[in-house]
């Protein structure tokens, strides 16, 4: 350690020996999380995402208003188990997670984070956690309001309140896992490409839209596949409008249930949950590693020769 440093009261040590003491890294992490949440929950982007999250509920209200005989179960399936996981959740995750570092880099405020005593990998993980929180808040809000819009005041559902509430909770939990996985993936994408929105939308359209709906093994690399298996198994009374092989969910999602109504040939629930969680964790750790070792230019270099 340099003499000048010792004179100024720094702790003694050699290279990389300056400790990050527990009492001060905690407030820093808390402040970073709070800052990131404030960034997510204000401004035009927040309003746009809020409107997007309200869309399924608005569609439900319009449908009920225009078609008094609309089936609540069909609306539930179409909006909560088709539109939300396939359209809304990936978009929410893409918008929030892809900009974990890129937004601040573009705003040139990243410097104010990097000159603090918080390792870059931790900055990434804390900001990703805030992005996940924001996306989860909107996801839960969207699901709950859509359930309310579908079932509130519908004749014949009075005695099924607990059942509907349970379905709502299960939907929130499964979609919550999907949001986690999506956030991990899009956060990682944001770390490896500058055109993350384009790449992310292509990913959503190709993988989560196209590949997930065709009965080839390719769909095992999609998030929505595992979410659908969980939904089918945990909410059969909602996902399956018909009986046996006529299940709407199975037919729509290309799940072969002939002779295998419980999808025993497909990944088990615990594997589905593990896949969704591990996707998030692995992608987040990889991205944190990249974040720690790459440079973030906040100013375009001027050519000097």
């Amino acid at each position, binding site marked *: 350690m340099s003499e000048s440093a010792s004179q100024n009261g720094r702790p003694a040590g050699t290279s990389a020996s300056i400790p990050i003491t527990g009492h001060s890294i905690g407030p820093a992490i808390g402040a970073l999380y709070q800052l990131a949440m404030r960034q997510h929950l204000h401004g035009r982007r927040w309003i746009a995402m809020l409107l997007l999250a309200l869309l399924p509920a608005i569609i439900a209200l319009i449908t009920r208003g225009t078609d008094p005989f609309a089936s609540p179960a069909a609306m539930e399936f179409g909006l909560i188990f088709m539109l939300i996981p396939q359209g809304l959740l990936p978009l929410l995750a893409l918008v929030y997670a892809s900009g974990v570092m890129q937004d601040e880099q573009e705003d040139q405020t990243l*410097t104010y984070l990097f000159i603090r005593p918080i390792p870059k990998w931790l900055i990434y993980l804390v900001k990703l956690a805030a992005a996940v929180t924001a996306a989860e808040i909107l996801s839960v809000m969207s699901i709950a309001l859509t359930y309310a819009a579908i079932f509130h005041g519908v004749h014949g559902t009075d005695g099924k309140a607990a059942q509907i509430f349970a379905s709502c909770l299960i939907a929130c939990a499964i979609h919550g896992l999907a949001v986690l996985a999506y956030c991990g993936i899009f956060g990682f994408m944001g770390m490896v490409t500058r055109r993350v929105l384009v790449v992310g939308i292509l990913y959503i359209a190709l993988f989560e839209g196209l590949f997930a709906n065709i009965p080839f093994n390719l769909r095992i690399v999609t998030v929505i596949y595992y979410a659908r298996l969980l939904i089918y198994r945990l909410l059969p009374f909602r996902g399956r409008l018909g009986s046996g092989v006529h299940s709407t969910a199975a037919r729509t999602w290309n799940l072969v249930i002939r002779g295998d109504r419980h999808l025993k040939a497909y990944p088990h629930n615990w594997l589905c949950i593990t896949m969704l969680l591990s996707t998030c964790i692995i992608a987040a750790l990889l991205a944190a590693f990249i974040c720690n070792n790459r440079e973030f230019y906040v100013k375009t270099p001027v050519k000097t020769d």
Partner: protein
Amino acid sequence: MVGSITRSPEIKPVIAFHDVSKWYGDVIGINKLTLDIMPGVCGLLGPNGAGKSTLLQLATGQLCPSQGRVEVLGETVWNNSAINRYIGLCPEQDALYEWMTGREFITCCARLAGCRKRAADAKADELLELVGMTTHANRVVRGYSKGMRQRTKLAQALVNDPQVLFLDEPMTGTDPVARRDLLEIIHRLALKGTTILVSSHVLYEVQTLTENIVLMNHGRLVAQGSIRQIRDLMDQQPHRIVLVGRNIRSLAAKLLEYPDVAGVHLGPDGLSLVAQTPRPDEFYARLPSLALSGPWTIDEVYSEDDNLDAVFHYLVDK
């Protein structure tokens, strides 16, 4: 390198660059730089694109050297966030969290630096007072002028009471009052023992802060030392002396006859010339007789080398 500072061998450098290069693809930002910055205030001078900001970003661990090693307080800075407890940076870019108030911004930075909420609030009050922003502290940053932004950026750099402070063009775009205030604050910090490296392309700003300067151009170290030392180095090189008068073209032809005149350039106005001479004493001694010996007049004589501007331009143009 033209020159280097002489110093006591016992004092260790606070900031040290060891054979550091930094490339941005095929663009070179810093070229084989070896540099020691000692405690105190040091001015980092160079034109736009000289590599000043790159140097500061390397010194604050935001960039990784392509080659060589950068140390601050004896520690390698790249990927060493712990060193950030002891350093502060006032960046060049004006960006702040635009939706925050000035007070919220400083409090947030203090908390990011590890202060608890109450301590961060107190620190924000103290620093806003120091930089003269108390009255504007509750305004949203989006409406701040350039000078107010510079003050706020300086305040955020001080939230951790840094031992080493990096200021990247802190006076750019400020009005005279803000400039005076910022200079005063930097002076006070220096008196408290903070090592300060301040970059600028405006020379007189730095001249009022310190005698110690580092001159950079094209990513290279051009010179380092006190302004006086650099002036001494200049004495080994041709001086540039300006003569203003009438019939200056014939005077230029006459000057070229003398062996101590290395070159003469006519001014664009046709009323002045710049003579280069390695022996200024002989040149000045000859001037009285020369003024009376031809069809010209010499109304004004001055050296282009009398200010730091000249030193700087002389060295970087070399």
